[in-house]
């Protein structure tokens, strides 16, 4: 019974002190999570900002209170701004910034809520963009010649011209500015379309002409080659025929040389055979061979 009573006393003491500790802790501890900043205010006036995550202390309410600010980086995209480049071309550009709270005190005092940051940045960025793009040609933004392009420089200029102001005036740290839209005013688009159309037509004509030229080159080369091959064949043919004619002549000559008289005789007989055809009319005297034979039989 006494043991039970003692246990109960201990228990009461533990529970009581724990409850007390919890209340004190809750009132005085400021647990700053990573990505947050706690702004400690004394009677509503900001006294310090604790950017380091961890456990921090303050005096209990109502003397001190803590306001937590989100220190995450945020993306803000500006509206489209029309501007004039140095070579007097209208372009419409849009930028985006990556920013975070850089100076919690200044930020809270200047902007109060986080939603207001956008509006302030928009104006700041639009002015900077108009000023900086006015100092560059359009070819610094879009060009096929790498030497013309100055995007890195433009973005660096934008950053250097806005970030000190943003930090000083609003406590906003700008970490990155990029151009994420380069467009043309609507009335200029038609001119671009016309230019694109003309360029396409030119390309089509060029492809066609090139194709035809190439095709006719291939064809004429092939024809030339074919003619060359045929000529070579004809040459070979002439050579073969010439050689064989010579050999034929030699063969005949060798044979006929043995008896030229007989050759002349047989040759003239052959000629006779060749000359007399169906379209030949022979006129012979009745006293010539072989008709004379009949006559000689009849006459005597």
């Amino acid at each position: 019974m006494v043991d039970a009573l003692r246990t109960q006393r201990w228990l009461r003491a533990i529970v009581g002190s724990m409850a007390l500790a919890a209340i004190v802790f809750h009132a005085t501890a400021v647990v700053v999570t990573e990505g947050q900043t706690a702004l400690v205010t004394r009677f509503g006036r900001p006294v310090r900002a604790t950017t380091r995550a961890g456990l921090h202390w303050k005096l209990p309410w109502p003397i001190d209170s803590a306001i937590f600010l989100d220190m995450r980086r945020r993306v803000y995209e500006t509206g489209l701004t029309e501007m004039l480049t140095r070579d007097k071309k209208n372009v419409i550009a849009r930028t985006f910034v990556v920013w975070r709270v850089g100076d919690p005190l200044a930020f809270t005092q200047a902007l109060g809520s986080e939603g207001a940051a956008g509006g302030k940045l928009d104006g700041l960025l639009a002015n900077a963009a108009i000023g900086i793009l006015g100092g560059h040609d359009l070819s610094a933004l879009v060009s096929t010649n790498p030497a013309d392009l100055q995007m890195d420089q433009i973005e660096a200029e934008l950053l250097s011209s806005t970030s000190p102001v943003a930090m000083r005036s609003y406590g906003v740290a700008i970490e990155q500015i990029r151009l994420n839209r380069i467009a043309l005013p609507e009335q200029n688009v038609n001119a671009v379309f016309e230019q694109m159309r003309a360029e396409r037509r030119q390309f089509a004509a060029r492809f066609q002409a090139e194709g035809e030229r190439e095709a006719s080159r291939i064809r004429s080369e092939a024809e030339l080659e074919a003619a060359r091959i045929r000529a070579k064949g004809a040459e070979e043919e002439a050579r073969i025929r010439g050689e064989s004619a010579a050999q034929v002549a030699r063969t005949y000559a060798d044979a006929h040389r043995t008896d030229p008289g007989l050759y002349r005789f047989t040759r003239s007989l052959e000629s006779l055979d060749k000359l007399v055809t169906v379209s030949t009319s022979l006129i012979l005297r009745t006293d010539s061979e072989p008709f004379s034979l009949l006559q000689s039989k009849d006459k005597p």
Partner: protein
Amino acid sequence: MRKLGLPSEVGRLAAPVVGLLDAAWQRMHWWIGAMAVLYLLSGITIVRSDEVAVILRWGRLVGDTPGLREHGPGLLFAFPRPVDRVVRVPVKHVYEVSVGTLASTDEEFTFDPVTQGYALTGDQNIVQVNMMARYRVRDAAEWSFYGPKADDILRAEVTAAMVRSLGEMGVDRVLADGRRELVATATRRVQAGLDAAHSGLEISSLELTQLAPPGALATDFDAVQSAFIGAETAKKEAQAFAETAIPAAQAVADTTVQTARADSAGAISKAKGDAEAFLALAKEYRANPAVVRERLYRDAVEKAIASAGGVRWIPPPIGGSYHGLRITIAPAGARAKSLSDPEGGDDRP
């Protein structure tokens, strides 16, 4: 009893609570004990296979480098809240975000940059591009606590990278063989941007779901395409012609040569035969010149008479000469009618 207790006022205020506690302890002290143990163990977390976890102790990250901070899959021992907080991040999961800021909208007739998305190429042509970016978390702590919203930063960086990468290439390269290079350059720029924004993200792929000139110019671009195809076709046809013409010429040349060879062989063998025949005849002639000569002569004359179209016989001349003899030779078609007598042979009156 009083000397050990609390001051009487506090004691009186605490009396109902104390009574409640005493009653609770007496009835279910096992339950209370079990719950206390459970609370002490509540910091132990299971990290799944696609996650890493980081521990926040009093809000502060435990570990100095990403390698020490991040705990892989398995059991993770941590203190219960409010001391420790375990944040699990699915780092292996690949997220998708569709970026349509430079793509065409339904309103085809306007080219107001506010409503219609497009980008300028290096040669100041207009193209429209629709993209799909896939990304995953690379640095769990940076992404969880300091990084911007993933979809926001991805959209902005992808658009900026694409605007810039398109701005340095000509439209023909963009639409043809430069597409892969375009994607590679843009991806590199996106990653550089994500790093500069301390996003803790990593782009795993950038895909162009659509890349085309504006719809109003589609026919002009198609015309170039078909001109190109037409040119290629013409070249192929010419090549096909060349591939048939040359072998055909070769065949003709070969035939010519072969015919010539065959003809020569024939001519030579005929000449040899004739020569042999002549030599044989000559041998015979030397033996009996008169008989052979006579036979040859007669054979030839008979053959000539037989093969001639018409033969006319005229008497021998009187006194050595013909006086007033007229011979009419009819044309080939009328040969049958021709007569030996000059007066009767004439059809004309």
